[in-house]
């Protein structure tokens, strides 16, 4: 009986302790990260990537390409 109860107490002490330690560290790490991000990687720079529309895994974007090709070919003819 005593044994089980003390196990429970230990679990509570270490569990809550660990949760607080972990989340406290996370508070600090997040703060540092946010400060670094706002200093070295301000918003506009961050928005620059992610331009290209994504094809599927190793897939073909041939539909788009076809469209592009058709349009460009049309433009090409028109200019002649």
């Amino acid at each position, binding site marked *: *009986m*005593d044994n*089980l*109860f003390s*196990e*429970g*107490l*230990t*679990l*509570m002490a*270490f*569990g*809550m302790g*660990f*949760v*607080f330690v*972990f*989340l*406290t*560290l*996370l*508070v600090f*790490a*997040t*703060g540092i*990260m*946010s400060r670094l*991000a*706002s200093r070295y*990687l*301000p*918003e506009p720079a*961050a*928005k620059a*990537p*992610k331009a290209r529309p*994504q094809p*599927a895994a190793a897939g073909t974007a041939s539909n788009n390409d076809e469209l592009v090709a058709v349009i460009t070919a049309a433009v090409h003819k028109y200019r002649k």
Partner: protein
Amino acid sequence: MEKLLELWQASGIYNISFGQLTMMIIGLVLLFLAIRKNFEPLLLVPIGFGGILANIPEAGLAMSAVENAIHFAKPEVLQNLAHVLGVSGTDVHELAHVYHNSNASTHAAAALVAQDAGYSNGMLYNFYTIAIASGAAPLLIFMGVGAMTDFGPLLANPKTLFLGAAAQFGIFATVLGAVALSAFGIMDFSIQDAAAIGIIGGADGPTAIYVASMLAPHLLGAIAVAAYSYMALVPLIQPPIMRALTTEAERKISMSQLRHVSKVEKIMFPILLLILVALLLPDAAPLLGMFCFGNLMRECGVVDRLSDTAQNALINIVTIFLGLSVGSKLSADKFLDLQTLGILVLGIVAFGIGTACGVLMGKLMNKMQGGNAINPLIGSAGVSAVPMAARVSNKLGLEANPQNFLLMHAMGPNVAGVIGSAVAAGVMIKFVG
């Protein structure tokens, strides 16, 4: 005529036990709560339906091939099983008992015997093995939840993580309650059982199922039902506690608008969290790893088709199988037990203590910051139950002050609570797993 008798003796009416009937009614009640009362229907509809299926007499949908072979008790099959299990007689109860306590190689050998005799695993048993026993389904749901979670409010005010930490006290207080019940001889919970019951207080379905499947699979049905039911009851459970612990003045506190959070911060947060988990608590790595992966897919902006699938087709498919699999654990012999009553009582205590600790931590933080910065009502959202608990905070705030919009402020502790209970889960798996 003989065939007619056979058909009648194989029918459900002839074979149904009182326990199975009761469990089928419980399944119907769960469906009623889910459909008419909107109790977390996405989980409780499959769980309730699975519970009914699992208790259909003679169908053996939730039983393994060996259990089915023992149930139908053909003499020559029982003899072969007795031989493999190392039992002298062919008493079915003894065979079942020895089977459940035998090691993995004996299990495998018994399964081959049952298969040779033409028995196969029930459909729900297969679903449970693949979805839950492997740990896959809760982890994939957690990935999907990660892909749906916006950490913006948390990043705008990281201190709300403390509220998410405080609310986890409900988990551990309940563990203590469960061992106390055992210590005083009222119930008979092992420390593993106690830990699995405590996690109900985490107010996080997939975390509860993951922990229960590892620490106390025999209680999984009751724990999952309790977790989802209480999450649905958050709007009833939390308000009285929140009102009792706060003053009218505190509830009126209006919080300043959250700062804008940049895309880079949102991308880096799941990576930061993953690294902290990796360095400090590897046992939480599966849960929080998949959560962070889902969130990174959401925020990184270059894999939107994967993120969409994780939030829709994949999470829906996994939810169907997870729900039916949980339902397979609603068998009469495991659910109709005093322990289930204990689990239900302890679960609601866990929710209450978690709520109270979140609110008290909110009061403390408010005091430390001058008494007018943090509305303690957002503390209760630290139990998670995303986004219900945050909505409850918002509602009580509006009651006290119609201009007081707490929703976004409460989303911070709300998602912090998800992280907090996953960390608590990791600690418990580490110590008693």
